[in-house]
């Protein structure tokens, strides 16, 4: 299976898909799947709670697909927020206060992928490159294990 698409409106509905999502990740990115799932979970929470503001009439669309040497993940909600603005606001708050209780979701998403971008309001995209170098590494770009492995 090269792609996976799930639609849900609540956390409970999302949780029914977790096993399949984890299975897809394990098949495509091997050991790195566990950490990548944490990033997807953050994007989903962001979409449900901030994008759709917990409104069960609104949908979230999660799409994962492998295209060549890239795994593309997109999470789309029905809100009109510019996540890019929120991302930079949270990042500056993190830099200012390392004991902030909020905003680490974006840090996790950014650290787990090679590219994080916001193509339109309400949509977050993460790209993970599956080239020889990263496939050999046990973990994702932001982690110490990855940095050590690539350095050596």
């Amino acid at each position, binding site marked *: 299976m090269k792609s996976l698409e799930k639609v849900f409106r609540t956390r409970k509905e999302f949780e029914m898909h977790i096993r399949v999502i984890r299975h897809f990740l394990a098949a495509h990115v091997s050991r790195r799947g*566990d*950490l990548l799932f*944490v990033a997807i*979970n953050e994007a989903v929470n962001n979409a449900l709670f901030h994008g759709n503001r917990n409104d069960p009439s609104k949908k979230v669309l999660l799409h994962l697909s492998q295209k060549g040497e890239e795994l593309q993940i997109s999470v789309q909600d029905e809100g009109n927020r510019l996540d890019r603005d929120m991302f930079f606001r949270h990042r500056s708050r993190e830099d200012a206060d390392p*004991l902030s209780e909020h*905003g*680490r979701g974006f840090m*996790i998403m950014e650290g787990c992928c090679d590219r994080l971008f916001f193509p339109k309001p309400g949509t977050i995209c993460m790209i993970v490159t599956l080239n020889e170098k990263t496939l050999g590494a046990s973990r*994702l770009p*932001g982690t110490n294990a990855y940095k050590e492995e690539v350095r050596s």
Partner: protein
Amino acid sequence: MKMNMNVQGNRMEVHLSGYMYVEDATLFREEAIKKMGEMVSHVEIHMGELQFIDSAGMGVLISLYKRCAKRGGTMVLHNLRGSVKEVFELTRLDQIFTIK
């Protein structure tokens, strides 16, 4: 997620296992704050059997850490493993908490 908390004097010991999703984090925050009451200032959290934590769970840990610090106490995390450990590295919280 399963959580087990024991309080003795000004110390609280916590054992977490399973998956701490956002809804579990909310319950954990409520329960931990209730158990800590006015007395507890030292908290030990055993996380060797915790397989998942997200930013909501981390927010709860920071909140407990700040509560201990305000009372002149400490908070120590034990046995972080797998993706839980890596998420702490990613968010640089491994440089803030005492981890054993």
